[in-house]
């Protein structure tokens, strides 16, 4: 998938260089769509989904007297 993304990216840049503007923009947008798909696939975890429990914080419950 990453190879395909870079291939489309290089095609977009080459088309831009050779003044095929519409095709170049279409290729760049395709590249972005593929990249977004791969990004979502990379960050998805079967265990956590898209959540990030390692940065979840909890307030430690202290006795009221200790809170001052």
């Amino acid at each position, binding site marked *: *998938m*990453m*190879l395909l*993304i*870079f*291939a489309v*990216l*290089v095609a*977009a*840049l*080459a088309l*831009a*260089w050779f*003044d095929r*503007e519409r095709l*170049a*923009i279409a290729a*760049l947008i395709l*590249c*972005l769509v593929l*990249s*977004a798909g*791969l*990004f979502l696939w*990379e*960050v998805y975890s079967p265990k956590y989904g898209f959540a*990030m429990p*390692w*940065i979840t914080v909890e307030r430690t419950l202290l006795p009221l007297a200790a809170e001052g």
Partner: protein
Amino acid sequence: MSRHHSAELESDLAFGNYVYQLLILLTFAAILTAALAFQFGDGELPCPLCLLQRVAMFGICFGIILDFRNGFSYRNVGLSLLCAIFLLIVSVRQTLLDIYPREGHAYIGSAVFGIHMPVWSIIITLFLLMAYAVQLCVLGGDMDLPKIPAGAFPILKRIGSAASLYVIALAAVNLVAVLLQCGIGQCHTMGYALLQ
């Protein structure tokens, strides 16, 4: 509301705008060169999210390359901004993934001034978004600007074309590097899949 200036002032504004675009292009060319230098010089293989950040950086350059080929256009600014937003999303997510070191997750690669690559990506993107915001504040209402092609400033056009070609060559090198590292499958940072 559109503004119309005298021809001389319009030419100066267009020149300043192309210089501005060129500086952004050169900055990203330098960043992408440094990424390749770390990869081939220090053997630091990029992770999949790192590679997606490179894609976004090349996308930012894409809009500027179109400016130098076919003349400045606010559509090209929009394309670069789209890629900048994608870069920000990926780099923020990667920073949050590795912000709490645990098994299998820690910032990889060298730190530059104590800051790792995904955090640098966030900083770079914020500076880029600020740069585009300033550009649009100053020139955003100027409807005559797209009528002046980069070819009106021959030296600038030559430097811009050379920088554009360099960025395209960098993208081609990255394509070959991705082929070696990932093959047609998933990317890993353990080694080059096709060289093992």
